[in-house]
């Protein structure tokens, strides 16, 4: 974290802007880590929540939702509603899925199909920009003072990341987190101890989704742009890869996974072009086979 905090002082504005974006991805990765690594819910459509957050943020701040005007279109309300909307959707989805005892591959395929549906809907819904998405999303304002400066935005996002980390870490260490681990490792046994595993899963799913929604909303303000690709299957794939490579059972590892993969991508995709994704795919397979706990996950847990 300290390394990150010092980064803008190097004075390279372009890289600072890029890194701000990567940290947003890192927050998103942590949300998946919570859902997947801690509660064992393999979700192939996590980008849905990220996308919901981003779109809600965009629509609110651009004043495009009927009945919302004036004060309520501020970025902070947008942020709040983005988180709320993602959590709300996840709650209903979770209620629908987990009480149906869907788990493992079934859940994976269902969420995969959902992410395809979400992307299709967003592409064909012209009010929210259709294929082209929405642009010119206003920046966050703090008492009329816009957080638009490159460094200020960077520190703001970094601070949010830190808060999210602390919150998730606290959650994972709490009794709630212990129960989650029990459900992940042996659901039947956890139920025999009297824990309603579906409820715990729904709760975690919603919390994870709200964090993803937060990341999405931040993404919308940072890049000032949302498009259907951030809802869809491809982006869900990417975040799974970051988290798996980093280490799904360790929050910091997932965060680093996202940031490092994106950084490498920025540097290497110029040199390797199309080969980059291929190498990433192969690397992912190797990592799943030989480092099931992820690269940073293995490193961090040895200490």
């Amino acid at each position: 974290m300290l390394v990150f905090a010092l980064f803008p002082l190097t004075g390279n504005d372009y890289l600072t802007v890029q890194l701000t974006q990567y940290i947003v991805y890192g927050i998103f990765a942590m949300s998946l880590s919570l859902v997947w690594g801690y509660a064992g819910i393999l979700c192939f459509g996590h980008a849905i929540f990220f996308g919901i957050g981003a779109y809600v943020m965009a629509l609110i701040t651009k004043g495009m939702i009927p009945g919302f005007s004036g004060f309520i279109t501020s970025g902070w309300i947008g942020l709040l509603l983005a988180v709320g909307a993602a959590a709300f959707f996840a709650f209903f989805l979770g209620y629908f899925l987990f009480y149906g005892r869907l788990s493992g591959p079934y859940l994976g395929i269902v969420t995969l199909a959902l992410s395809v549906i979400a992307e299709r809907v967003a592409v064909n819904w012209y009010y929210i920009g259709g294929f082209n998405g929405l642009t010119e999303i206003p920046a966050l304002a703090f008492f009329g003072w816009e957080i638009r400066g490159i460094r200020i935005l960077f520190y703001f996002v970094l601070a949010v990341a830190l808060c999210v980390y602390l919150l998730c870490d606290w959650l994972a260490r709490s009794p709630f987190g212990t129960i989650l681990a029990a459900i992940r490792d042996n659901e039947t046994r956890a139920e025999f101890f009297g824990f309603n595993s579906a409820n715990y899963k729904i709760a975690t799913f919603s919390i994870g989704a709200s964090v993803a929604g937060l990341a999405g909303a931040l993404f919308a303000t940072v890049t000032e742009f949302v498009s259907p690709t951030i809802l869809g299957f491809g982006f869900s794939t990417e975040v799974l890869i970051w988290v798996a490579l980093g280490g799904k059972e360790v929050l910091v590892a997932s965060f680093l996974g996202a940031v490092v993969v994106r950084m490498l991508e920025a540097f290497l995709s110029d040199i390797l072009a199309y080969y980059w994704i291929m190498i990433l795919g192969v690397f992912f397979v190797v990592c799943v086979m030989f480092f099931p706990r992820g690269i940073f996950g293995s490193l961090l847990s040895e200490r």
Partner: protein
Amino acid sequence: MDFSIQILNGLNYILVLILVAMGLVIIFGLMRVINMAHGEFFLLGAYTVVMTDHAGLGFWPGLFIAPVVVGIIGMIIEYLCIRHLYQRFLDTILATWGLSIAIKQLVIVIFGPAGLMIKPPLPQLVSFMGIEYPAYRLFIMAVALMTIGLTFYVFLRTDFGLGARAVIANRDMAAVLGINTRKMYRTTFTFGSALAGLAGAVMAPLMSCDPQMGLGFFIPAFLAILVGGTGTLAGVLVGGGAVGGADSLISFIYSPVISQIVVFSLVIIVIRIRPQGLLGSRGRG
């Protein structure tokens, strides 16, 4: 547009979907491996045909080479990767998914991201029952029906099929009774991949072959086996019929996009209400 032609087109889609889904379901039923790279095997089958066509050999040799090539690729993948992951169910999903990304990208590297067309192998129309219908589509249906029939024959009438069904029913017991599960897994994976390769090859002349086409078949095929139930082969027929039929019908009435959204949503609801599938029985999770 003539309605009976739509029915035939729908039937066409259903049969190819069943072909893809059947490869998936025997791999899943037997090995408990969800092969996320199955759509890419379909893709490889189609591109094998594209390659033979561009090499001047034409479509027909490609049709025979494609299942063999894809089968061999499947065998290599099983040997290098999947074999090591049999005890780790969720990891096989991730690993095959990584493979699917890598294969798709390899295809993009070699052939470029744009769609490729091949010459129609049977351009003539056949007229029967008062309608004109492309001969090639009838050919696809015949191939699909034959392959489906053959697969059923293998699984229901041969010693290998008996062993395979024993493994599906109770893997440990089958192993105790002296069935070489390792060998069976390899054969199954090869066979399943070859089926996807064949499906890709026969579909290649009908669609423009682009690197994303695998996913377009993988998801409906997977939803089909979930709808039908994973425990039996017959479930694939029901699931493929339901998903493919609904998709064809709704895209005829409205549009392909709406149909995809509606069908996927409906399937999710069906899976939620009957996780064991329409034909499955409770008992096996």
